[in-house]
């Protein structure tokens, strides 16, 4: 039973660029949530997707956008990258909006 997978594992971008991160949920899960984790901090909720729609959103600017596909996989897009966007981006999946969330290994984004 495959767990949550994310790609790529590491990414280096420069300021102003755009980035797309990908997530495949755990088998049987239909809900994907994205988190940003700065070094030494706990994960911060970005948004959640269910039935291909954004259901909830945290306190992140519109530069952060996402998408969920019919197979439940999801993408996180960040435009106009800032140095402060450097972080570990985590994807979590669950069976429904309020069920227990299981995390992937994350994508380490470095913005130079």
């Amino acid at each position, binding site marked *: 039973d495959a767990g*949550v997978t994310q790609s790529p594992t590491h990414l280096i971008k420069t300021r102003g660029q755009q980035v797309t991160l990908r997530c495949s949920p755990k088998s049987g899960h239909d809900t994907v*949530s994205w988190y940003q984790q700065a070094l*030494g*901090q*706990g*994960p*911060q*909720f970005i948004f*959640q997707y269910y039935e291909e729609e954004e*259901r*909830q959103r*945290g306190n992140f600017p519109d530069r952060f956008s996402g998408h969920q596909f019919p197979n439940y996989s999801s993408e996180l897009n960040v435009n106009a990258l800032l140095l402060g966007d450097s972080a570990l981006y*985590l994807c*979590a999946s669950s069976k429904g*909006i*309020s069920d*227990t*969330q*299981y*995390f*992937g*290994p*994350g994508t380490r984004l470095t913005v130079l």
Partner: protein
Amino acid sequence: GESVGLHLPTLSVQEGDNSIINCAYSNSASDYFIWYKQESGKGPQFIIDIRSNMDKRQGQRVTVLLNKTVKHLSLQIAATQPGDSAVYFCAEILSGNTPLVFGKGTRLSVIA
């Protein structure tokens, strides 16, 4: 601000001893709590959860205690092993379908 916090940022224990990691929350409406373990370079791993209608729940070598009177949560790890070394986060769901709110984490170091 964050409604979930931790009393101690670091904890060192001898191998074989019991570990206790504490967490305070500020919202009495919170009804679901989860403990996650995060090893270096990995995503958070689900350990155990508890709902607000319970005050204790046990897993394999782990016990979570919930004291709603003082809004306090603890994770007890029995016979701590070197593989338990990690950062531990408590996370909270305020109510219904609101997203997970994480605290900053406690780093557990096991001394062999």
